[in-house]
């Protein structure tokens, strides 16, 4: 499942909800990745834009891949402003055995970084500044140039 929230994520509640959703599904492993905004380079926080139609189809394809391996993938992400030490991103895999979940979370988060239609901005002095140097062009970019 894909969950989008305005502002920082309520990490304990999301992890608990997901745990409870799968508590009797007979998965032996629950491996979450939690991304937290660090205090670095003088930023006040980060801000995010999301294009939901393509994020949803991208995530659906990953749900299918998870299913093929007997696993389940869940993801939560913030829209708008997220302050220092808050979380903007949680992904988690449930699988019967740990190896599948450990490998899957790595593949999923890497592709998320390269492909998910989300744009990041630094918050500085009330300004929203596009994080151009940390961003990755989606595969196949440039056909109009």
């Amino acid at each position: 499942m894909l969950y989008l929230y305005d502002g920082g994520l309520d990490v304990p509640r999301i992890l608990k909800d997901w745990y409870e959703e799968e508590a009797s599904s007979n998965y032996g492993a629950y491996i979450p990745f939690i991304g937290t905004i660090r205090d670095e380079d003088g930023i006040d926080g980060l801000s995010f834009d999301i294009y939901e139609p393509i994020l949803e189809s991208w995530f659906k394809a990953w749900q299918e891949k998870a299913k093929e391996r007997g696993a389940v993938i869940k993801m939560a992400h913030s829209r708008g402003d997220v302050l220092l030490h808050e979380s903007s991103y949680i992904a988690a895999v449930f699988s019967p055995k740990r190896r599948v979940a450990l490998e899957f979370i790595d593949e999923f988060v890497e592709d998320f970084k390269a492909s998910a239609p989300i744009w990041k901005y630094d918050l500085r002095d009330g300004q929203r500044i596009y994080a151009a140097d940390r961003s990755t062009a989606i595969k196949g970019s440039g056909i109009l140039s």
Partner: protein
Amino acid sequence: MVRVEFLGPIQKEALELDIKNLNELASILQDDESMKEWLENSAVAVNDTLVSSREHPLNDGDKIVLLPPVCGG
């Protein structure tokens, strides 16, 4: 007519254009100074599916979006 939207940090209003394929869109945007920094690094989706060729045909009512470099998380 097709609608062209510019996502994320591209500061440009949506366009309504009478064009038949992405080659025509490329010509229009290449003449736009404000798009210079974005054309090389943006992906293109037609009706919310990413496309890999400029030959992609366009139909009346199609929605095109330009997706600049991403960074979730």
